[in-house]
């Protein structure tokens, strides 16, 4: 099977295989994505994040069904944590989405973080490109259950849906820096539980200090019962219109591209730094530093200089 051709012809097997290859940092897949990059940029990418157990998968399932009723096609990338000890993982987000498996207008892919911090995996952006080229109208990225500072999702999406639940802490939690700053739309899920209104007030108060042009709406929902789903969709549409009309969409995508380029460069440089040829150099510097004959700042500068020199010869 020619993978590039398969992907353009909307073959799900080709899409699935390409995502695996991107996850394994396969050169052929990277070449295909480079070649087909001009086909990206059409899908609307929505990040769904929030603490573990907030109902992100259930909400993703319901939002997808609502979009399907409007004849939009949807891809879902669901990220779950990889064990730092064994490298294994249980990717269980699909459990909440089983009605969608046989829908031809839906594609679901589970990914392990594979050692990457920040709520996504290294290959998530590559997987988004694959699904964008395939031609999905919407791509949902569901992050791992986040704590306070896993904000990679901002760099990967056009809009961020922040899923909260009642009773996770007092208002000081709501004004901390980190994930609370990245939501474009807030949903308090499981809003039939006690404390939902208080949580809403606390989040609203936090947002009052915020002087962005876009005031993130705070909605209540009970995803399991399909309550409040249409309102979430509506607000996501509104946010997208705002991005387009204000010129912020391009600005956001510019920021995202910049971060992606820098990150890819960083990764290649680190890979090169840690390749066989440089291992000895690193080991020698470590010895020097550990015996206090050299300081780590100078050691790092020496490595950079050496790498730049080798590059120049290339």
């Amino acid at each position: 099977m020619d993978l590039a051709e398969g992907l353009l012809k909307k073959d799900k097997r080709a899409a699935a295989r390409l995502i695996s290859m991107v996850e394994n940092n396969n050169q052929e897949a990277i070449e295909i994505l480079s070649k087909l990059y001009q086909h990206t940029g059409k899908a609307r990418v929505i990040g769904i994040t929030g603490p573990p157990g907030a109902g992100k998968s259930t909400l993703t399932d319901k939002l997808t069904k609502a979009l399907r009723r409007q004849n939009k096609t949807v891809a879902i990338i669901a990220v779950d944590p990889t064990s730092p000890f064994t490298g294994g993982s249980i990717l269980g987000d699909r459990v909440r989405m089983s009605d969608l498996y046989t829908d031809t207008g839906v594609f679901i892919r589970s990914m392990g973080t594979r050692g990457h911090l920040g709520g996504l995996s290294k290959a998530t952006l590559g997987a988004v490109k694959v699904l964008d080229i395939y031609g999905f109208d919407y791509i949902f990225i569901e992050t791992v259950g986040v704590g306070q500072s896993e904000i990679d999702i901002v760099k990967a999406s056009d809009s961020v849906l922040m899923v909260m639940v009642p009773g996770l802490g007092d208002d000081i939690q709501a004004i901390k820096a980190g994930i609370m700053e990245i939501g474009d739309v807030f949903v308090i899920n499981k809003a039939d539980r006690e404390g939902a209104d208080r949580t809403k007030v606390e989040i609203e108060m936090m947002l009052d200090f915020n002087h962005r042009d876009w005031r993130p709406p705070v909605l209540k929902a009970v995803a399991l019962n399909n309550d409040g789903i249409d309102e979430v969709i509506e607000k996501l549409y509104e946010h997208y219109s705002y991005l387009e009309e204000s010129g912020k969409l391009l600005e956001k995508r510019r920021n995202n591209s910049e971060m992606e380029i820098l990150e890819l460069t960083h990764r290649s440089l680190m890979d090169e730094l840690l390749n066989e040829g440089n291992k000895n150099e690193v080991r020698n510097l470590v010895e020097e530093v550990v015996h206090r004959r050299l300081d780590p700042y100078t050691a790092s500068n020496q490595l950079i200089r050496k790498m730049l020199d080798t590059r120049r010869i290339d």
Partner: protein
Amino acid sequence: MARPIRVLVAKPGLDGHDRGAKVIARALRDAGMEVIYTGLRQTPEQIVQAAIQEDVHVVALSILSGAHNHLLPKVVELLKAENVYEDILVLGGGVIPDEDIPFLKEKGLAEIFTPGTPTQVTIDFIKNNLRREL
């Protein structure tokens, strides 16, 4: 990080619980595999679509209901129809009488693991019988 083996653990049919499947899922996770868990009451069609989209190396089917002679071959048949069977190792497990095992193997199940099988046996079998490179 090494390329992990990806395994879909699925439960076809109308079983009431999935304790056994979760034990296997956990054991495979601890063996360094990426386990995609789909939960209870899946149809063969759902399982096959999940296997394709997740691009798994292994489909592990757990079944307790007694409908194995119908549901397990059906999964194989659909994988074949989608042209992905050659790439995927299909395993069965659960309450399956010994006398049914030859029939299931003939239908394309690579192995059947019955209650009491040490999880390490399953892990080794997977590692030694993958049908495509990682």
